[in-house]
């Protein structure tokens, strides 16, 4: 890490003020109606929180994106008007390592093989100020078993670690360095004692027991072998086909494109991208009425296989970052860890 400094907790709000005056919109965790969400921060922010309910993927990939507007006056050629994303610079404070790793995976999708200008425009204006998990993990966390770590800075611009009175701020990108440099005098030098404490906190966090996908490395092959397993339908039996697992997921990125009409006389509207969801029954519905993924089992298989097999085949890494949202929030307790383990067990 190129830049490692200390920040007195009392100065966090000053730093945020400095970042804000540097032209950034600062977002931080806020508790509203009982749930943690990233909200614009006015003055100070409390970073002592578990994790946000919804992964922060919407900074670069909002649930609704307008591509262009159109108008068709009778007798004339249809007119299109491009809508460029309004993407203010956003610095998101308090991103957890699993979600930082999620951003890396989203970047793969929208920037590796294809260039999605809407995503890229927003992404380049987004900075993630991460927060290492040094509290005991929640019963549904499993980041370690999918190649992550509670203190990973992957995908972050800065990683903060809470050492009680102070944060250690470690810049991971140029953007991160710039954000710290903007308020250079607020930061202190990381001394040896600090360094020692940091290492200890990180080591303890990594050592804390988590539940685990038994053989994540072998998962792609196992899922391939278990494609036709009867386990899928059995595991999906209680599934209700809602969209919680994918909408909360830091790496789910499927979308639908629709024309939303704003007027009929003359014909006016806009082409809109909205999140879609492989668990919805209409996701793979063909115009003919045929649906290749008609059963809940096939849909569960799609979701799990995408995370643990297809993405790996495409990008050489597991897509799942082990945040545990799909597990803790599932209304009926469908547990991706248990599913992967069970399929693997079944084909073994």
């Amino acid at each position, binding site marked *: 890490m190129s830049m490692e400094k200390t920040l007195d907790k009392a100065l966090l709000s000053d730093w945020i003020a400095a970042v804000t005056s540097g032209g950034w919109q600062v977002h931080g965790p806020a508790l509203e109606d009982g749930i943690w969400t990233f909200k614009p921060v006015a003055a100070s922010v409390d970073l002592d929180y578990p994790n946000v309910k919804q992964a922060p993927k919407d900074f670069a990939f909002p649930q609704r994106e*307008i591509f262009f507007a159109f108008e068709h006056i009778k007798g004339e050629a249809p007119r299109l008007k491009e809508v460029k994303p309004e993407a203010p610079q956003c610095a998101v404070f308090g991103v957890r390592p699993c979600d930082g790793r999620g951003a890396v995976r989203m970047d793969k999708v929208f920037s590796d093989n294809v260039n999605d200008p809407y995503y890229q425009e927003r992404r380049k204006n987004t900075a993630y100020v991460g927060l290492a998990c040094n509290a005991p993990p929640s019963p549904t966390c499993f980041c370690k078993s999918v190649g992550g770590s509670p203190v990973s800075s992957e995908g972050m611009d800065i990683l903060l670690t809470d050492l009680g009175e102070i944060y250690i701020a470690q810049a991971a990108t140029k953007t991160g360095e710039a954000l710290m440099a903007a308020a250079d005098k607020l930061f202190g030098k990381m001394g040896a004692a600090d360094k020692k404490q940091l290492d200890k906190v990180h080591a303890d966090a990594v050592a804390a027991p988590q539940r685990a996908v038994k053989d994540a490395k072998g998962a792609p092959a196992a899922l391939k072998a278990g494609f036709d397993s009867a386990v899928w339908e059995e595991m999906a039996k209680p599934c209700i086909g809602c969209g919680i697992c994918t909408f909360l997921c830091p790496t789910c990125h499927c979308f639908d494109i629709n024309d*939303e009409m*704003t007027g009929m006389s003359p014909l006016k509207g*806009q082409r809109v991208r909205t999140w879609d969801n492989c668990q919805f029954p209409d996701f793979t519905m063909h115009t003919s009425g045929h649906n290749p993924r008609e059963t809940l089992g096939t849909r569960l298989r799609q979701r799990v296989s995408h995370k643990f097999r297809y993405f790996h085949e495409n990008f050489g890494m597991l897509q799942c970052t082990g945040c545990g949202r799909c597990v803790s929030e599932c209304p009926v307790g469908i547990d991706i860890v248990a599913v992967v383990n069970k399929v693997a067990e079944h084909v073994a």
Partner: protein
Amino acid sequence: MSEQTYEPKIVAFLCKWCSSAGSDLAGVSRIQYPANATPIQVPCSGSVSPMYILSALKKGADGVLVSGCHIGDCHYLEGNYLARRKLHLVKELLQFVGIEENRFRMSWVSAAEGAKFAEVVKEFVDDLRPMGPQEKLKAKRA
């Protein structure tokens, strides 16, 4: 929009047999009333789905009127009884979520009540005007 230029937009569902006929009678009698309500003739007030009310508000209506035959006079015998119950629920729900009570209105206007129809529309417009445009449920497509 300023108070002076604001004209409430009303979608008026009128049953064919009583209220639309009553509205016709207002016309035949040349009773003048504000032009804010655009009528949609439906067979019966009982055919007005609660979703039509929501749809109208979402499409930007400032007020929605449903008018049918008086109780006991329904051309289809019972349609207005069903409408009364269903739309009572709609009215309660709208109020519950904080939509102004006066945005949704129901009336019974018989084929003989041209003057009453004009009065219902006039009163509705008078009640809506001070409230200003309905923005709460209106779709904002930006």
